[in-house]
């Protein structure tokens, strides 16, 4: 099969029970995506598939032939950090960092979902004009952080949202 990962095409012969996460980590050497539970419970393995965030531990690699997969390794552009990566650094949005690749991929996907007008479970009365802390919490609730860096993850993501919208979140 063929896996398109971070703009590169990989020919792979995989056992059809192989998850995308294992394909990335064990077959392509892309260990940035983390395995925290292998059961879709923690979000550490979050990657982007055609721009949408998924738990790569719950996807079988063979079902993703031909789609564009982006992992944490593919977010920075020629050494320049993606704005979400930069914001996590600036806001100290992590401690051990094990959840961080998943948090960052999830945030990138989430910001795009928001831009596309997707409501969340806490959205009331139509699409809110801007992401607020409540929206960020709800939309990021699938990503556990045991170090409890949540208090810094929320402002990190809001920084990026605000910068994209041309506001300063002070």
């Amino acid at each position, binding site marked *: 099969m063929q896996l398109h990962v971070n703009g590169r095409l990989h020919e792979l012969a995989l056992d059809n029970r192989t998850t995308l996460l294992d394909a990335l980590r064990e077959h392509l050497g892309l*260990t940035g995506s983390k395995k925290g539970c292998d059961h879709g419970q923690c979000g550490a393995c979050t990657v982007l598939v055609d721009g949408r965030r998924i738990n790569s531990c719950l996807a079988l690699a063979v079902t993703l032939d031909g789609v564009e997969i982006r992992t944490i390794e593919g977010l920075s552009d020629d050494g320049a950090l993606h704005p979400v*990566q930069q914001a996590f650094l600036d806001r100290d949005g992590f401690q051990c960092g094990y959840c961080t690749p998943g948090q960052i991929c999830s945030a990138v996907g989430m910001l795009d979902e928001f831009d596309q007008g997707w409501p969340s479970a806490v959205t009331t009365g139509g699409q809110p004009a801007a992401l607020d802390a409540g929206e960020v919490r709800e939309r990021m609730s699938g990503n*556990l*952080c*045991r*170090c409890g860096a*949540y*208090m810094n993850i929320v402002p990190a993501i809001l920084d990026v949202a605000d910068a994209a919208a041309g506001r300063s979140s002070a």
Partner: protein
Amino acid sequence: MTVSTEVRNRTAGGIGESPVRPDGTFKVTGQFAYSSDLWMDGMLWGATLRSPHPRARITSIDVGPALKLAGVSAVLTHDDVPGEKVYGLEIADQPVLAFDEVRYQGEPVVIVAADHPETARRAAALVVVDYEVVEPVTDPREAVGHPDWKPVHDEPGERTAMSRDRAPVHPHGNIVRHQRIRFGDPDAVTADVVVQGDYEVGMQDQAFLGPESGLAVPADDGGVDLYVATQWLHVDRRQMSGALALPEEKIRLTLAGVGGAFGAREDLSMQVHACMLALRTGRPVKMVYSREESFFGHVHRHPALMRYEHGADRDGRLVYVRAHILLDGGAYTSSTPAVVGNASTLGVGPYDVPNVGMDCWGVYTNNPPCGAMRGFGAVQAAFGYESQMDKLAAAVGLSPVEIRTLNAVSEGSILPTGQRIDSPAPVAELMHRLDAMPLPGSVDQDIRLLPGGVSNTTHGEGVRRGVGYAVGIKNVGFSEGFDDYSTARVRIELVGDEPSVLVHTAAVEVGQGLVTVQAQIARSELGVERVTVAAADTQVGSGGSTSASRQTYVTGGAVRAGCAAVRSSLFERAAARYGPGEFRLVAGKVESLVDGVVGDIASLLLDGPVEHTVQWRHRPTQPLDEATGRGNAHVQWAFCAHRAVVDVDVELGLIRVVELACVQDVGKAMNPDAVLGQIHGGSAQGLGLAVMEEVQVVDGKLRNPSFTDYLMPTIMDMPPMRVEVLELADPHSPYGLRGVGEPPTISSTPAIVAAVRAASGVDLKRVPIRPEHLVAAALCH
């Protein structure tokens, strides 16, 4: 922040600042290599077969079927352990691989190496182990048949026909440690106001996100190299040396990226197993636990049963505290003795109590082994004594803040061990500051912000607001006479034309920011901005454990001392070059105290590098007297207080923590961002213990080893926090700093419970609180 200490700091990125973590870019780009990310060509994968029974005799083990599976290279049992068959942090009693008997569900019995992780797992499943199942001892009360034992609860655990003759979990009996505290005249004294309570703490799991893992590589000299996530490289090595029958110098450990620790990596997990397999097969062996296996692969927080009796005068001033604390240590010793030491010595909390009678037991059962978790001993006791302080407040008509400030310890107070607190102890100030913080607005009618959230369980009709307070005390560093030290090698040299410092210690970064703070110290001490912290390994002396909130204190102290030694050498060179005088190093320059800048640090290095390795110890402590608990057992105390605001749906028993406020004295905020990170994270874990986190153990069997069933706080559960940080210098510690990591875990739990009690009116006795605790009580009203 209130700053009462001033440390000269003119070199950028030094102490008191929050420079970007040196490992930060690697962590946000996915390049940081955790122990589970390691890879080597030709490596094998290890797997572990574990006991399905909490207690059984092993009658036979047949590895034949596993060995026949294609791709399997080794299947090892206790017969293959090269050296000592047992290991342990304080007492060696935990089998490397079970022999004769298994004492908890999940105990390792057989290990396998194969060319694929699935093959290894399948092979492990093919091993035939015959067990003769024995009824387990699972009630810690029942485990203790000691003459001194007084039951914590009036009704002893249910006895079965067998229980009278039940064999002890270990031949030496079921008591790991019994520590008594006798202060004043606790038996005879009486008081006008007496409050009693029984309290229970459930078993919490550290649940770090990066499971146990590592890579063992056999070496040409017959030794082995291990790349692993741990908390203390040298103590791992010491235990491995016994089990592998190899001298320590033939076992080289290098720290791999650590995906959180929180105490769970203090004991060995896969270290010896991976090395046994590597040495047997002559190939690198990687082991990675699954999440389920991780729940069996490390110790948990001790569950506790506590009975407290507080006596006070009519004004609320404490007269005595009598308490029994029973800690379930599970099948093996692990850190239980230290947990008992902390729970007993800190068991009355940060209060002046003239008479104390305390008995604290750590016992063996056939439950999962319990050991280190953030704030151990102090966390359990705080739930008991803080619940009592609220009861006492109600009995004498004081507010929670008033009762605590009235009885608060302060500098100079004598603790129940007879030890005097000889550094600031601003407990009353913490309470006053909490009290002065604004409260959040009243119950929000937005359903998103109500308990139950968008599950749409209420429109606010059964929702009550509650506010609760708690304060805790924690010892910092290793106590009770332990020789607690760290080692630092500091080297300064020219790289290009620039002076550059290399700091090398074996101290473990787990996310708390230790590599950052080591570099900050070197910058401030040596006036050099370019500082690299080498990977932690056993090529340098021990750094001690990343636990007990001790690393910034002890390894920070070692780095400072190493820098001081380097600086002295540089000053000798400066004197030779510029004439005698007093110098200092600031921002790359050499300054004479008289003449100002006299030259560059770089010019002092033209004669070659300077390097010193130093060992640094904090002041010594003493063991506790077994019968009275007398002894200057602790080196430092840290204090933290929380105010919790909760909304409780009293009809459904659902809780939402609306806000946490926290005030902590850190002595000196070496890195303010990292201090806040520890306060946020510690508070979150305390919140978890208060309202959701519990390893469910029934008849010795773990019922919820997954993140679906073991609930911990998500980003939705973590409320906004108000944090104030005090910096009241401890004159005995480097820079005046205090350990930061554990204290916030201690007070957040009882503050939240107090708030839920205030909201619901229910006399809660157990954490974590479950909806049925609230609803069942409401139905009885």
